[in-house]
């Protein structure tokens, strides 16, 4: 399966040139770009690991691309996403987020149905990768 989080998951994986163009767009909006990575991509996992702080004062996409390269090298076989944070009043939140690295294989999630009263079910999603190994070893080839 292919996890379709982020705003470009239905397109073929972006090339570094395409990623740099999107980063440039974010910087033009005045947003701070940040890198995050995880091997627990559950949609309710809000807090991925931060690759350093959001780059508040960085204005050159090349700087982000350098950090991205370092992050990918240090964390192969994880999900990496680029977030763009807007600190203007009324937003103060992420304005754009897209995946820029995926593990080679994505086993996905199992839907667990707990039967309760009547016809009701309690649903929960479990990641196959998270279930089989601790953090750091989940997507090892």
């Amino acid at each position, binding site marked *: 399966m292919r996890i379709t989080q982020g705003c470009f998951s*239905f397109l073929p994986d972006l090339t570094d040139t395409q990623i740099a163009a999107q980063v440039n767009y974010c910087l033009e909006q005045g947003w701070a770009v940040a890198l995050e990575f995880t091997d627990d991509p559950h*949609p309710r996992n809000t807090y991925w690991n931060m690759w350093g702080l959001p780059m508040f004062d960085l204005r050159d996409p090349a700087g982000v691309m350098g950090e991205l390269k370092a992050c990918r090298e240090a964390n192969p076989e994880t999900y990496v996403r680029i977030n763009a944070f807007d600190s203007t009043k009324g937003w103060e939140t992420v304005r754009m987020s897209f995946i820029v690295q995926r593990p080679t294989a994505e086993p996905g999630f199992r839907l667990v149905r707990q039967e309760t009263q009547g016809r009701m079910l309690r649903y929960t999603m479990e990641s196959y990768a998270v279930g089989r190994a601790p953090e750091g070893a989940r997507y090892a080839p």
Partner: protein
Amino acid sequence: MGAADTPQQILDPKKRYQAGVLKYAQMGYWNADYAPKDTDVLAVFRITPQEGVDPIEAAAAVAGESSTATWTVVWTDRLTACDMYRAKAYRIEPVPGQEGQYFCWVAYDLDLFEEGSIANLTASIIGNVFSFKPLRACRLEDMRLPVAYVKTFRGPPTGIVVERERLEKYGRPLLGATMKPKLGLSGKNYGRVVYEALRGGLDFTKDDENINSQPFMHWRDRFLYCMEGVNQAAAQTGESKGHYLNITAGTMEEMYKRAEFARDLGSCIVMIDLIVGWTAIQSMSNWCRDNDMILHLHRAGHGTYTRQKNHGVSFRVIAKWLRLAGVDHLHAGTAVGKLEGDPMTVQGFYNVCRDTVTKQDLFGGGTIGHPMGIQAGATANRVALEAMVLARNEGRDIASEGPQILADAARWCQPLRAALDTWGDITFNYTSTDTSDFVPTASVA
């Protein structure tokens, strides 16, 4: 403007409060010199006075009938600070290009309104005046609501920012579709459509306005099967998904019951129809705050009073009231689509709401009617959307290059190619009824 023979306010109290009938302007409901206070509620009406009725007197009547006046003088006015309680019409202008129609501006003191109650506001502003005989027609065009008043409402239970944070979806419009056919599907078949559309790439699906609990699909069945579809699609895509469960019902007790069931099943969103009424909307908004729920409002019924330019209430005003009452989503119309909506005016509604959610009714038919199936239809929509966002961010002009961008994406995305082959040339090119007649005049700000 102002005709020389327009009756002026009678200032001598003995004459003013003599038993009998006076003109509304004589009673004090017209005051061309009135300077609205920052704390006043202001309303702009478009009025069409009956033949022979002076427009200023008609404007005064609107102010009178929407505040303290009745058809005759009452001495009991003198037990009150009646000058303050009277609404004042203070400006009138002919509507450009519309013979016999006038925009009139009316100011209301803040003390005329109860805090936190749209029911009270509407009972005043649109309670009596629209049936008033000297007017052939009347339309409430816009309102300015003072901050002090606005802060007595709680507003949307979730809001755009928190909704996106809950869903972890940023940087592109959210994509949704209404389930079709609107009526007749069983719960099991209906849930299938939900599942296919979400699995294919939509973020949300929704019930239509008249899906409640009919014999062909009782509400509990619908809720159960829809949530099966939602959760199955979420697990297979690793992405948050949702379905707007319509909890509109005959009583508040029943609506609460349905809302609680939706919550217990893990739904992140419920929906209600505008026809449940302002009080019910405010109550459901409070419930949603207490239960971490997004509230979607389907503007069912609004066309009965928003569409005609000379009579009713503009959707601009309805959007403002809904924002106060507290809904997270509302249908503001589509710039292109089968339903009424002038593109410029629709953009204005979005500005009122700062709504960044895109939901086009065309997506409903366009997703479900796709020649390769519902999943393919949803995928075609999602790919088209992401390709356009990517291109826009790269600095390309999507207005002129749009067709090329889509054609490029269709080269590797077969569902999109099939969609373009089927509907590439469809337009809904009818003239809109509700276009703006207002022409701004230069003013010294």
